[in-house]
């Protein structure tokens, strides 16, 4: 059971109060986007064994969406942050790099 903190209402609660929403920071592609970008936005996922930036919703609380950084190989939660950001904020990156000094985002490919 994960213990998560909602950055919107600052409640810390068990995972069952929340609902996972998959990979965060996906760039939304509109009707005039290229086909490959559209496919990528809809279906392709990083699915890393390690640091995952993801969306969660505080369904049985304030109802708001937020972002979170978590390690899928250890289930360690590095912290949560507002959904209205295009990249993870510095304090989250610092927390992640304590464990994964070489971590880069977006992943070099």
């Amino acid at each position, binding site marked *: *059971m994960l213990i998560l903190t909602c950055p919107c209402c600052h409640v810390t609660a068990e995972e069952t109060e929340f*609902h996972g929403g*998959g990979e965060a920071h996906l760039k939304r592609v509109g009707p005039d986007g290229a086909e490959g970008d559209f496919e990528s936005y809809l279906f*392709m996922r990083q*699915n*890393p*064994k390690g640091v995952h930036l993801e969306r969660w919703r505080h369904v049985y609380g304030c109802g708001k969406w937020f972002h979170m950084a978590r390690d*899928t190989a250890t*289930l360690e939660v590095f912290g949560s942050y507002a959904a209205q950001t295009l990249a993870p904020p510095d304090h989250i990156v610092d927390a992640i790099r304590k464990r994964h000094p070489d971590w880069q985002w977006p992943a070099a490919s």
Partner: protein
Amino acid sequence: MKKYSVFAVAREAMRHHTGWTRAWRDAQPKKRYDVIIVGAGGHGLATAYYLGKNFGITNVAVLEKGWLGGGNTGRNTTIIRSNYLQDPSAAIYEKARSLYETMSQDLNYNVMFSPRGVIMLAQTEHEVRGYKRTAHANALQGVSTEFIGPDRVKQLVPIINLDGPRYPVLGGLWQARGGTARHDAVAWGYARACSDMGMDIIQKCEVTGVRQTGGKVTGVSTTRGDIDCDKLGFVVAGHSGQLANMAGFRLPIESVALQALVSEPIKPCMDVVVMANTVHGYMSQSDKGEMVIGGGTDGHNNYTQRGSFHHIEETVRALVETFPMISRLKMLRQWGGIVDVTGDRSPILSKTPVEGVFINGGWGTGGFKAIPGSGWGFAELMAKGHSPLTDAFGLERFAEGRFIDESVAAGVAH
């Protein structure tokens, strides 16, 4: 390879079982193979087996980072059925189910296939309509299933409670030739047959990189050195994304934990498999007498091979409502596996952006039942470049919007 038979058992009994030999060789990696399969689970081993048996390709290595069958193949609840909705699914799952019927004879290895029958309970009006539709589709596909009423369900499963307060049983989709098999034996039987054809099954050999020149694969790097190959198959279930990453492409797959548990053994009380998709639980009784129970996946990406306790609680709560007598059973063991889930709940058997690299993954929560059919089709795809069994399951279906939507057939993990 020494043939297993009643005479062999008798002969060994006379000499205190001193004459049994290893079922497969503990091979060392060679410098080069025609084909390398990554992952010695059921699908990888079945692929190797049919490469040899159907196409005469035997210069093959199967590389496994842990031990043979130690992934999902050795962790699943072994439900075998082929009552899917879409034609491509029915084709590959029914091919697999029919191959299970004769697998023990074909492999000369007892995989304990037990076609005891599988019921998928309909507990809402929506499910009744859905399963009737599936039964009609199955009739057209030549897959033998039928929709049965509550009385018939009760006859087949005397321990069931038909009128639960929340979800009364309104009927069920019944596949009489579905059932279970011994998971380890499926992996071991294929491994023995592959080894006998001269293939190398190499355990404790993790693939750490994919080598390529000019967009074409040349080999892999492993924890036991570099190995060259002409063709490479990724058959690694939950680790599909990792292997794709090594080769430089992405997949429409996410890895999540799926759990199962077994009770203490009790006397025989249920001789069919029952799945309750609305409440998220399913159950069968093993030959040892344990009630084998499974449920849904966890709600977040996970590589830890263990799941959350609240999911077990959810599953057990739902099953106690449907089978009140299990409320007093003690649970013995619980475990998890990392399953590879795609957006349309159908697998990917495909070429990839790297020439010579093929992928067989995305079987998610329900690939044990497909092992022989998947191996059959994927071997053909790797040998000839296409296969009638796998053509619809290509990666391009996501770009083309040509999904094989099985989110209903696979409503619960199984």
